[in-house]
């Protein structure tokens, strides 16, 4: 039983309705939402909850705690600037990727995507804004690592009564930032691929801390894998980049593994996000 009077009945009322419609239609022509605005909104969204603020605070907190630990326990002859910055970089390789992953997964896990993707129906743009916002976080993180590291280096040397050793250059800062960015993007891609907060964090821990151990073990026991590892193991190359140890072939290794383990999953993730249903 279908009553097809909908259009006819409503059409009958249209004269009086049309006047209203034109009155409203003329009021404004909205401009498209610029990407810069989306990036600033996404940055805000990463840190406007208690958990987000704690993640941000923990970047600084971990830097200070790590520095304290080195001053307290490292032998005096090992106190160098790189000792501090690289150690501070380790907790950052956990926290930054988690921030990046959560910025994507929370839209699904917390279901805020319903609002986000109706305000900006172009999901690709939202993802791009999130990626840019996440990468921007490496700037203060790198600043904190080298700032706190410098303070630690000076006070560590003073306490141990040894000369201060500065062994990091601007290039090392760039390597550090690039390495952190790549790891952060791994977190981002896993977040976009899995779209579940706990799932993405577990996956990143497997990538960052379980797999490298297993692969190192395999390389130790199998000569063929020891040779092939740089061409296969993305984290191996990313760690080398963080330390500033990447030379010659290392850059090719990094490029190849990044394409396979970062770019291809990113393409799959973006396609899935664009096609999926937001509930």
């Amino acid at each position, binding site marked *: 039983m279908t009553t097809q*009077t909908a259009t006819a009945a409503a059409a009958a009322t249209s004269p009086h309705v049309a006047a209203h419609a034109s009155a409203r239609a003329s009021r404004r022509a*909205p401009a498209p939402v610029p990407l810069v605005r989306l990036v600033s*909104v996404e940055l*805000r969204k990463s840190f406007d909850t208690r958990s987000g603020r704690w993640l941000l605070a923990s970047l600084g907190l971990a830097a200070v705690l790590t520095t304290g630990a080195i001053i307290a326990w490292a032998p005096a002859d090992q106190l160098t600037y790189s000792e501090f910055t690289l150690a501070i970089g380790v907790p950052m390789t956990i926290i930054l990727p988690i921030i990046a992953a959560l910025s994507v997964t929370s839209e699904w896990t917390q279901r805020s995507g*319903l609002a986000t993707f109706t305000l900006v*129906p172009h999901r690709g743009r939202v993802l791009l804004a999130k990626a840019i916002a996440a990468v921007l976080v490496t700037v203060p993180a790198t600043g904190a690592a080298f700032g706190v590291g410098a303070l630690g280096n000076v006070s560590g040397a003073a306490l141990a009564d040894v000369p201060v050793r500065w062994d990091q250059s601007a290039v090392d800062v760039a390597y550090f930032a690039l390495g952190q960015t790549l790891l952060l993007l791994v977190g981002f891609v896993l977040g976009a691929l899995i779209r579940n907060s706990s799932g993405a964090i577990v996956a990143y821990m497997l990538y960052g801390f379980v797999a490298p151990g297993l692969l190192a073990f395999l390389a130790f026991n199998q000569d063929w894998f020891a040779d092939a590892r740089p061409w296969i193991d993305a984290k191996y190359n990313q760690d080398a980049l963080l330390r500033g140890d990447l030379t010659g072939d290392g850059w090719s290794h990094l490029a190849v593994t990044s394409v396979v383990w970062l770019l291809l999953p990113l393409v799959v993730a973006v396609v899935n996000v664009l096609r999926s249903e937001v509930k």
Partner: protein
Amino acid sequence: MIAVDQVTKTYGTFTAVDDVTFTAHPGRVTGFLGPNGAGKSTTLRALVGLTPPDRGTAHVLGRKFRDLPNPGIEVGVLLDASAQHAGRTGREVLTIAQRTMGLPRARVEEVLELVGLSADEAGRRLRDYSLGMRQRLGLAHALLGDPEVLILDEPANGLDPAGIRWMRDLLRGYADRGATVLLSSHLLHEIEVVADDLVVIGQGRVVAGGAKTDLLAGAGTHVATRHHTELRQALTTAGLSHHPVGDESGTSNGGPTVFRVDADAEAVGQVAWSAGVALSELRPADGAGLEEMFLTLTAETQRDPRPAAHTTSPQGAAA
């Protein structure tokens, strides 16, 4: 203006939305009505681009939703008031939307006041919100851009009676200013009071649509009598189609039998008077007409069997 054209969405073998077509016009409140799981929410999600339909198109203000340059300014959407980050405060949720749309900051406080959320409530986190407060915040979110189209899924859900009344007046005011308002509900009364047009959906299909007055005019007249044999005969003689409403328990226990007649009250009264039948009730069927229609139209799609004791009991109707 909202135009949904032959939208179909299937999940495996299950067809959630089946060839749904309807139009919601400016200046009118369109009620989107259907039982649980009828496909209301899926249709609305397809309308705003959250669910890609398998077939069909949906247009808002003459464009596909994703082609709107800044949708929040033109279309206010509330699909699920609980779908927000539980750790954000109400004010923060609105601030994010306000910044995304590029609206002045003061607009947040304006809509907070409009929906009746106090400054203290706006500063609380969403996990501490009651359903009614979430619903108000969701409405504030939808109204933020002062849009000319409103798409609201079950907006009355969780609101107290005063809140429902307030929302009804608000939607009426929006429509009267020329906005297109589409609201879904399974709350028949809510829709009946506020809607100008109706779209009834059951098992993913549109089973009825049109102006509320037209649809309810077809509901006919309810007439109750203790002399059901005589009245039935007189109606048949007069050529008026009729059928008993609910079960015929009135017949066995001596109470009045209620008929629904496809004619206006005056014609039915005339027939009864000519036949010398005393009536215990005579009224247009529109009081509970929508419910009647709703249950009839979606009878095959209802998950619950129709209760024997009918809601349009003579006592209830006389009150």
